[in-house]
């Protein structure tokens, strides 16, 4: 494999993120936080990165994504408790269940646009939420599906236990690495380019001969599958599957994380947003009961004054350093040169 080929798989920001999260267990206690926070952050990073393929790249806002996260968690738990206690098969069950449900929903919504699309995702998300809270024989309703174990990572010839948070962290980190590389390849594949074209102008993409309804459905199902994957991991992290993650507010929180981080302008926006959210929760939460108030205000300010989010602020700083001249002077110089 040549260097160029390698670069299209692994990029410098990726290495930075792997370096930060890969060393996290060694320094997280030093900065006054705890390892389980790292687990939560990574799981929500997976969830948010998958969501951003839909929102940031496809321009398709889903306000019911918690449903697929929750379905992944329940499917993982049900598979583990009733069918087979093998980590890989249970994870697969979580991913497939969320993806299948997403695909069915996509049949109803993928020919819709804009606000209609958003409203229909709310309707389906709420439906899933209420079904999960009422179908007590399967989901155990408000109590939650308990006793979900962190199954050992079994490679056939060797098997690692991941019951302890420290060990579990490494497994989630590996999942994060795989998700990042896969999603990076997806958004830079021809498929990803068509999805981005749909965001820019759906009608024109259709005129070019692409089946936009199919592409929208596929990207929706993909992001549901990733949400299901994250949900399955979250079920392991919490030792249970609970219905709260499926409600409208939690579905909104993932949108909030993605946007505050800058999912519209960067692949890495969601990661920044998730980190900010959890740090804000722990730091503000330590001082005040009403940290959501302050986070909500911060979020409003970001949307008003810097809608490109944290990644947008970062890009602004980098660009200013790279291009000290204003674009007007650049134009002027170009004109002078042309003479």
């Amino acid at each position, binding site marked *: 494999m040549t260097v160029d080929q390698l670069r299209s798989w692994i990029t410098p920001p990726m290495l930075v993120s792997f370096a930060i999260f890969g060393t996290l267990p060694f320094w997280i206690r030093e900065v006054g936080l705890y390892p389980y926070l790292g687990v939560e952050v990574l799981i929500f990073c997976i969830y948010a990165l998958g969501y951003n393929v839909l929102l940031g790249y496809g321009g398709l806002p889903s306000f019911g994504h918690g449903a697929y996260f929750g379905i992944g968690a329940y499917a993982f738990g049900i598979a583990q408790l009733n069918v087979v206690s093998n980590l890989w098969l249970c994870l697969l069950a979580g991913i497939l269940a969320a993806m299948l449900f997403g695909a069915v929903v996509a049949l109803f919504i993928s020919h819709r646009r804009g606000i209609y699309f958003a*409203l229909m995702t709310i309707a389906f998300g709420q439906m899933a939420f209420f079904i999960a809270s009422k179908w007590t024989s399967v989901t155990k309703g408000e109590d939650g599906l308990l006793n979900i174990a962190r199954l050992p990572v079994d490679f056939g010839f060797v098997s690692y236990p991941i019951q302890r948070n420290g060990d579990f962290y490494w497994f989630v980190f590996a999942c994060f690495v795989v998700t990042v590389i896969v999603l990076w390849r997806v958004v830079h594949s021809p498929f990803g380019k068509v999805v981005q074209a749909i965001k820019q102008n759906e009608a024109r993409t259709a005129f070019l001969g692409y089946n936009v309804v199919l592409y929208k459905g596929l990207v929706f199902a993909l992001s549901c599958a990733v949400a299901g994957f994250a949900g399955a991991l979250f079920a392991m992290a919490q030792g249970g599957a609970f219905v709260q993650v499926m409600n409208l507010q939690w579905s909104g929180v993932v949108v909030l994380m993605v946007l505050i981080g800058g999912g519209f302008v960067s692949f890495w926006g969601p990661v920044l947003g998730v980190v900010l959210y959890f740090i804000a929760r722990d730091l503000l939460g330590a001082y005040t009961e009403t940290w959501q108030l302050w986070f909500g205000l911060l*979020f409003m300010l970001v949307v*008003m004054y810097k809608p490109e989010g944290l990644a947008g602020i970062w890009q602004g700083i980098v660009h200013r350093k790279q291009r000290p001249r204003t674009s007007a002077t650049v134009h002027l110089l170009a004109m002078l040169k042309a003479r």
Partner: protein
Amino acid sequence: MDLVHLLLPHLLNGVALGLLFALIALGFMLIIGVMEVINLAHGSLFALGAYFALSLMTPDGGLRLGIAQVLFDLPVGWRYVIVLLVAPVGVAIVGMGLEMCLRRTYGKDPLYGLLLTFGAALVLEELIRLAWGPTERFIPIPSAITGGIAIGDLIYSKYRFFASGFAILMIGLLWLFLEKTPYGALIKAGAHDSEMVRALGVNLTRLRLFVFGFGTALAAIAGIIMAPIWGIRPHVGVDAVVPAFVIIVLGGVGSFWGAVIAGLLVGMVVGLTGAFATDWSLISMYILLILVVTFRARGLLGKKSILEN
């Protein structure tokens, strides 16, 4: 006859609920029309209306101004009338403040407006929790509209009759306002093409501010009327805003009577399932929505709108 006895109270409940849903949805739709913003904070403003009413109705509602004592000395009936006039205005002012924040998102991706109001909903809910506490509250209502009323051999809650009547009155007034006054014409024109309205010399900034305030005041009125039926909780807004979405899509974005019909449909479906299959009452309206929208993509009476781009 037995079937009528069995069904009628639940149908009436459904109608009362549906009319109030329609009122919330109409305010929501005015805002979508003129500003192209889905106001996710609409439910929180609905809740805020109920809490403002609580503060004005009872001394333990958190209002500690000297002047308020004059209010609390009034008979409960008069207080209720004053509340119905004052609380929506208070909420409209909050709504106008929100519109001023929203201004920065006009002309950008409509998603930003939606997100800003999502943030506002979080903030409002927390503020409510801070000001009035997290527990469920009830507001007193005049004795003239409490108790039961007998129709033949059926006894039915007077308050729900009042709620239905009041909602019909408000919907009627709103229709007259939109159809028969020059201001209504401006709002409709603004919903059709706001840039053209501006080009014709109308102060669009003021129009938007007014419409946002007006839409949120309607939510507040619905909140006050709904308060004795649902009780008041900080997160009651979600229960109000989600049916409003459903009704808008079901009835068709931009259609006044579509929203009213859809409101009644949703109310009756929720009312009937609530009575006979409680577990289904919460998802019945989504099933209704999906059934209708699968066959009629723009809802019952919807036309093609700018929101689809």
